[in-house]
């Protein structure tokens, strides 16, 4: 009997996943430990190994279909072995573009847990252009002759109003539509029309850029590039969570300039001595220490209750090609500087390689976003849902500053704290961020901590 292949559950919050790519084809031999397929969760793309050896007999779930976790996605066994007649799991997402409730009711999640969201429609069903209103698909009826004419003309028939029985679009409607929209004046090269038809574009919606007013292949290629494309699951989660946060959390911002001159000099000294601390390590340590002084900042609220977190779980934003993840260093308050530095480094590397587990990417209580290497003056970050503040670190630059009534050049770095005003008031925000600043400027502290 063939063995079913199960799509695993990554992390506690994952309810559904989609296979990104099958790395084995039906009929391929599979060794124990071979990677069968990659899975996209709402945090990352993970590789799934085979627990057994055999031949991949059947793939029952193709890539890019959302299914509940623990579903059967294929079968492994000996060639010729019977495959149980199992219905493919119901896709977790409806095929049509209409919005629908998610499959499973959201579990009683902690505040910081991202909610499972409805994935975007499959690309086939995505509507084309934002121009006139395409009809809702259930109401769209068209006669075969009208449909053939619309297809031949390379236009989007869903934009046509039907005058036949029950709003049926008939050939006359298509002809009228073509006339009203100046189809007889449309000029398009044969290859451009061919390409538009292949890509299911509406030629009436394509602009010609050439002086001659003739739509060229380059114009159609531009229209193809402008077509809406589905976001990756990761991008969708980023969009959903940041929108939620920015909408539901009243943000305010406090900025201070930190004199990094001495700390940078000390860091070079340490580096020369073989202790490669990064500036982020010092900032992370200063944040952890300050959070312990101001526990209210290490809290979260739902608007009715506040919840204090006894541990500092420090998130450090890492940018990837496809988006952004925040690996979380748990119990950062218990770690000595050296260990904090090592953990930060290894977690960031793991996240960049796409190997961080969903549990390593959730549960933060405070986040640092460092754009120091990006040459920025200052910026404000959006608070991660479930936290009450985020620290935005800008670039360190030589600046003229006043010391003892004289203008001198110092290495200055701007820090901006974004606070959830429901928990953190202006005075607390100011005290907190100045606590960080004072620590970063206190060179004796670092000599003690790094010793």
């Amino acid at each position, binding site marked *: 009997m063939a063995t079913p292949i199960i799509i695993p559950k990554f992390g506690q919050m994952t309810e559904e996943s989609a296979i990104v790519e099958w790395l084995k084809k039906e009929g391929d031999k599979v060794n124990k430990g071979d990677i069968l397929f990659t899975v996209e969760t709402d945090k990352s793309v993970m590789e799934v190994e085979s627990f057994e050896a055999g031949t991949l007999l059947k793939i029952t779930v193709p890539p890019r279909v959302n299914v509940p976790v623990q579903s059967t996605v294929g079968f492994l066994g000996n060639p010729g072995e019977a495959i149980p007649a199992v219905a493919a799991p119901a896709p977790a997402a409806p095929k049509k573009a209409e919005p629908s409730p998610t499959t499973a009711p959201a579990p009683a999640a902690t505040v910081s847990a991202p909610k499972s969201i409805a994935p975007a429609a499959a690309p086939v069903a995505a509507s084309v252009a934002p121009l006139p209103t395409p009809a809702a698909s259930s109401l769209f009826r068209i006669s075969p002759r009208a449909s053939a004419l619309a297809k031949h003309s390379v236009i989007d028939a869903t934009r046509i109003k039907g005058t036949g029985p029950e709003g049926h679009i008939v050939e006359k409607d298509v002809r009228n539509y073509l006339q009203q929209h100046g189809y007889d004046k449309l000029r398009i*090269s*044969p*290859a451009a029309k*061919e390409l538009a038809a*292949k890509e299911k574009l509406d030629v009436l919606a394509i602009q010609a850029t050439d002086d001659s007013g003739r739509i060229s292949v380059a114009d159609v290629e531009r229209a193809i590039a402008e077509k809406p494309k589905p976001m990756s699951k990761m991008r969708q989660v980023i969009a959903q969570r940041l929108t939620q946060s920015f909408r539901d959390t009243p943000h305010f911002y406090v900025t201070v300039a930190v004199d990094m001159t001495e700390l940078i000099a000390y860091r070079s000294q340490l580096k020369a001595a073989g202790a490669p601390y990064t500036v982020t390590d010092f900032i992370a340590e200063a944040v952890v220490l300050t959070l312990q002084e101001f526990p209210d900042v290490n809290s979260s609220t739902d608007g009715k209750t506040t919840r204090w977190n006894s541990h500092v779980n420090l998130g450090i934003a890492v940018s990837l090609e496809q988006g952004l993840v925040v690996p979380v260093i748990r119990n950062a308050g218990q770690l000595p500087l050296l260990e904090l530095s090592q953990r930060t480094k290894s977690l960031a590397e793991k996240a960049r390689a796409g190997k961080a587990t969903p549990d390593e990417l959730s549960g933060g209580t405070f986040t640092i976003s460092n754009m120091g290497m990006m040459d920025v003056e200052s910026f404000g970050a959006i608070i991660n849902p479930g936290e009450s503040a985020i620290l935005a670190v800008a670039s360190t630059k030589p600046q003229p500053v006043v010391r003892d009534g004289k203008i001198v050049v110092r290495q200055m770095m701007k820090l901006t704290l974004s606070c959830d005003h429901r928990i953190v008031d202006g005075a607390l925000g100011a005290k907190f961020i100045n606590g960080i600043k004072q620590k970063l400027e206190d060179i004796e502290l670092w000599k003690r901590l790094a010793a």
Partner: protein
Amino acid sequence: METFDIAVIGAGPGGYPAAIRAAQLGAKVAIIEKEKLGGTCLNWGCIPTKALIAAAETFEKIKHAEKLGITVKGASVDYSVMIGNKDKAVGTLRSGINSLLTANGVKQFTGTASFVDRNTLEVNGGASVPASRISAKKIIIATGSTSAMPGFLPKHERVVESRAFLDINKLPASMIVMGGGFIGCELACMAAMLGVKVTIVELLEDILLLLDADVRREVRAHMEKNLGIRVLTGKALEKISADGKGVKGSFGDETLSADLLLCAVGRKPVTDGLKLENAGLKTTERGFIEADDYCRTKVANIFAIGDVTGKIQLAHYATAQGIAAAENAIQTKLHKHDTIVPNVIFTSPEVGTAGLSEDDAKKQNRAVKTGKFRFAGLGKGIATGETTGFVKWIADATTDQLLGAAAVGPHATELIAEAAAAIRAELTTRELGRTIHAHPTFSEIWMEAAHALHNECIHAPPKRK
């Protein structure tokens, strides 16, 4: 100091059309030429070689006329008359340019131009004439290129490049052509047809490497089998020497000797004496002046066109650039010059290409389909006895768009014009295949090749899959 709206440096096939176009648009125009109107193309390139090749082809036809029922006895070649005829053709065309420039009110200056600043040029007409200065709001550099002569070649009258070769009054009995590019191959074919024993030596693995393998195989086979040209590839010509008796060189272990060595290894840009630095311009590492698709250089009022820009070294490309440069220098709305550039090679057989080659498509990872048809399957080809070669279309595999074309065979250099127009108009092979072509003509072959791409040929058996 006289002032102009536009000054053009160089009156070749890029420069003089630029000057005329600028004058048509109402500008006050100056053109500066150090040698002869028409530049390399008219005086030492395209035109004179075509005059000589036409004569050589006529001789070749006479030699093979017997099978058509024409017997000519005692046909012989007087090469000095051919050269005279060539000079006459060149002279006629040159005076034509002179009258066109005059009729358009373009003021001509003879001498070498150099920049004083970005708006001022000094024209030096030689020791006997005092240098003069002119100023212009916009300046178009069209100084072209010249044959590259590697330093290791002996300086001797038996070692020549293409320009000097065209002025020799007597053909050698044998010659070595160093370089298997289109200039070397054209002159090799011409000489071979007139009875010269020719050896081509090409450093790279094949001659005419810009062409797809099937096209160049056709040319090379004909050159070797029918014209008796020896083609040696893959190694350099070394230990070259020349004396009163002849030239010698070694190719691997073999020693080659001949009466003449023609060097055709490429062309280098002409910027000597321009004093570009006075205008704030620099050349690239290889000596070219960089220009964008609008023919603008890095300096706002200075444009560059043609061979000196190092893009495509063809007269008609320079002309297209020249017209675009003149329009962009005068009008506020900028125009790019076109990018579908037909390329013609007057070897025997002739070659014409336009748009994408199969090699290009492969390099771009682009899925294409090809359709090929041979002249041997064409009524007109068989009737006239011109059956060498083929044409092929290269089309996008999904949209059927014509992306490129190649023709090798009779009249290929004329036939390519239809292909270039079709590619630029973004026709599909189906559209081209539906276009009625007159029968019996050579141009029918494009229609047949378009049918071939879909395996729908009337005049060829279906291909089995």
